């Protein structure tokens, strides 16, 4: 009996690690081949690279052609400011919706929740048509405003669920002490929201940092390109020289994986919390 259990346990480990190797293989292949020439990659994609021959040439080439620093700068600005705005405005709105059970607030909340099912494709054409005819394209700030709008429903939904369970007594006593409503929110309520802020933050980072379609419609000039846009453009322009392209892939992945290494527990927890609610 015990021997059988031991065998089963061993088989379980074997199966898991086999699957993990399969899962990670694509990334591994990108890394080793990014240190080869295109000819070496085509001839033998599985062999280990001989770094002394190619070195970081592919990386230098990709870095320059993708205009990497500019793209990552744009991505950082757009992601950080959009998310700060989403967190601030949606938490205030959710707080107000919970604490004032007016009829209009109930309607607003229902509309917000219902809007989450609308796929982006149903909005995209009128969005381009409206903002295009108002000449409001090709600007980071318009894109940030759009992310702020698209991020509201989900964030309010999550904050709403959390604030509902915070007892109101504490706030009442603060009101009696002469705190204004806005002071009360920032001093007492906002700090309590920390765990859900992390959830919203993580899901929004994954969404905005990796988004391609919306920025591709709004940001038209090369100087404004985010990382996904510059990756796309790099591949379309230099599609025959594989080796620098693979270095480009690795370059775009590095920042995300670096953050992941330090916060993987939070990220996975955030995804679970966001999905279950």
């Amino acid at each position, binding site marked *: 009996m015990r021997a059988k259990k031991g065998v089963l346990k061993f088989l379980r480990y074997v199966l898991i690690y086999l699957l993990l190797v399969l899962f*990670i293989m694509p990334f591994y292949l990108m890394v080793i081949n990014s240190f080869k020439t295109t000819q070496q990659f085509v001839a033998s994609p599985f062999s280990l690279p001989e770094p002394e021959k190619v070195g970081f040439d592919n990386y230098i080439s990709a870095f320059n052609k993708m205009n990497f620093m500019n793209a990552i700068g744009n991505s950082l600005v757009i992601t950080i400011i959009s998310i700060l705005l989403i967190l601030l405005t949606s938490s*205030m709105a959710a707080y107000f919706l919970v604490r004032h059970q007016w009829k209009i607030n109930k309607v607003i909340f229902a509309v917000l929740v219902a809007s989450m099912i609308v796929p982006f*494709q149903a909005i995209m054409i009128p969005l381009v048509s409206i903002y*295009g005819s108002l000449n409001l394209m090709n600007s980071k700030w318009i894109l940030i405003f759009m992310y702020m*709008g698209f991020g509201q429903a989900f964030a309010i939904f999550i904050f709403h669920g959390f604030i509902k369970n915070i007892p109101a007594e504490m706030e009442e006593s603060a009101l009696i002490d002469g705190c204004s409503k806005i002071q009360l929110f920032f001093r007492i309520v906002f700090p309590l929201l920390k765990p859900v802020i992390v959830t919203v933050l993580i899901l929004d980072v994954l969404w905005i940092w990796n988004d391609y379609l919306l920025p591709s419609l709004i940001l038209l000039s090369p100087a404004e390109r985010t990382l996904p846009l510059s990756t796309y453009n790099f591949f379309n322009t230099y599609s025959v020289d594989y080796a620098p392209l693979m270095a480009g892939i690795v370059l775009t992945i590095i920042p995300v994986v670096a953050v*992941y290494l330090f916060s993987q527990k939070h990220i996975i927890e955030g995804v679970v919390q966001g999905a279950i609610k």
Partner: protein
Amino acid sequence: MNGSRKKLLNNIGSFVLFMGPSLFAFICVLLIPLVYGIYLTFTNYSPIRLTYEFVGLRNFQAVFTDKEFWQQFGKTLVYVLYSTIFCNILAFLLAFLLTGNLRGRDFLRAGFFTPNLIGGIVLGYIWKFLFSNVVTKLGEIWDYQPLKTSFLTHPERAITAMIIVTVWQYAGYLMIIYIAGFVSIPQDIQEAAEIDGATGFRKLLHITIPLMVPSFIICFFIIISRGFMTYDLNLALTNGQPYGSTRLAAMHIYQKAFQANEYGIGQAEAIIFFITVAIAAVTQVLLTKRFEVEA
């Protein structure tokens, strides 16, 4: 009288302060375009024409008689169906293997989740290399004919390639939701089942799976809605090729609007698409809910 008036003004003031920015952005980028989009479907608006006029239901007529659109719509349904089935099977298996006492559990979960950190564009390009250069190389090494030509050059196999990448990408995501489901099953029920003699597969079938219906609902919902909306991956991996065989609905709408400049028809397609996604998502929830049991 004066007091209630003051209170009303006060309420309006705090409404504007707390709700204003949030509602303003939401209305400007979501509600107005949604409503204006419905209006667009009744016009022949195009950014390359100076004027446009009301055309009634002609756009919808054009969509319903557009064979290509329905073919690609059908392809999208097939793609979503297979992705949903295989992704959930793999995710459930991974979650099953990764629940309980296991050395390096967090490391393993993190490893399987990794593809979800990366956008569809980059994932698509990675797999483009794999399908056209690495898998074909394997075919040569093993001397196995079907692998010698690239998946991406065959109409049938190119859509399979799309499904493979989608399953690979989302399995880790659904896995962590299933793990949360496994963990939430009360210990005493499991023990009671074991005392009653239910072990292994029977326990899984009669105890675990019925209690995990909420997880199934979430996972099906996520993969169905994301599957329908797939665009980035489609663009980077196949770009609709070969011969338009992998052009999924989202890409068809994009090209209709922004390459053929037919905003009205494109938006009519988008509305039909929206209704389909909503019906598929809601039907799934209702169907799956019927299997739900109380713990």
